[in-house]
């Protein structure tokens, strides 16, 4: 056990413009995550203004909220990847690995000649690939309904 539960992932553009947000917890109002992400962007700004050179792409824990932990990652082109996790016991290396995969998928989507950078990502393929890596890292996130069904059938 101990798999983390990813409840939301987001891509934010060079400013604070959200390019993509996907939530994985149907019981929570999506707007709540939008707000959490927006708040975390202030922290990203602080952190990335501070250090001049040699900045890591991985920014670490941005802001713990009551229920969640928010992690950030900023590419050198200032695109930001945000992950919201619902877990007390999060293994940092797992988050880092997740961001690596997330970054790769994002970069593939940007290479689509029909996608304009810093605009909203509407690619179904991107959405599916993101959902796949989330499922890989946090199988619990997708089993809400399934767990309910199997409990009732026992």
């Amino acid at each position, binding site marked *: 056990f101990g798999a983390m539960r990813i409840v939301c992932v987001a891509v934010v553009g060079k400013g604070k413009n959200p390019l993509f947000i996907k939530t994985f917890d149907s019981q929570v109002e999506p707007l709540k995550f939008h707000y959490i992400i927006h708040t975390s962007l202030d922290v990203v700004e602080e952190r990335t203004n501070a250090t001049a050179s040699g900045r890591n792409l991985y920014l670490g824990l941005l802001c713990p909220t009551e229920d969640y932990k928010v992690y950030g990652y900023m590419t050198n082109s200032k695109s930001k990847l945000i992950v919201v996790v619902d877990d007390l016991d999060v293994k940092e290396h797992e988050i880092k690995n997740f961001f690596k995969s997330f970054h790769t998928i994002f970069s593939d989507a940007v*290479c689509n*000649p*029909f996608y304009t950078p810093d605009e909203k990502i509407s690619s179904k*393929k991107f959405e599916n690939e993101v959902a796949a890596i989330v499922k890989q890292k946090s199988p619990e996130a997708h089993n809400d309904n399934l767990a309910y069904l199997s409990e009732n059938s026992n």
Partner: protein
Amino acid sequence: SAKQMSSQGGAKDLARVGETIFKSVDRFNYELFIMTYGAMVAQLLRDHEDVQEVNTRLEKMGHNIGLRLIEEFLARSNLNRCQEFKDTAEVIAKVGFKMFLGVAAGVTNWDQKKEEYSLILDENPLNDFVELPEGCQHLWFSNILCGVIRGCLEMLQWRVECKFVKDVLKGDETSEIRVKLIEIIPEEIPVGED
């Protein structure tokens, strides 16, 4: 050597030829190549409202490439000239596609007279990263390939019609190009001879 093998050699022999040449050629960054192609298609779409116009332009570009590329192909592959049109299929699929795109194609769907066949592309590197935008259902993204085939065959005295009939970018399982022989182009008789 390749010359010792007749160009009517089986698909396996030709596949080996294609593989060998592919490995021997200097590589450059293939991502740059496919992104250049994608950028060109995207630009054409911005320049021309009509998707059919873009298809036509891509094919024309390909045709210009094919007229020239055939020399490169013949020089590198060192294969004997195809005696009959039907022999061109596997040569294009196993040697041509492998050499220039890095992935060999399959040949199927022959008509009775052996004047029409399909090239099946299970993989098409030009498609990497690509997702067609809305309103582009009639775009054949890799249509340049049809032009290249047409141009190459024209230099060998075969006039063909070459077009996509299936494309994975449109949701089809594979990409398929249909090659159809229209006529054998008569060699020009030089002025002064009858």
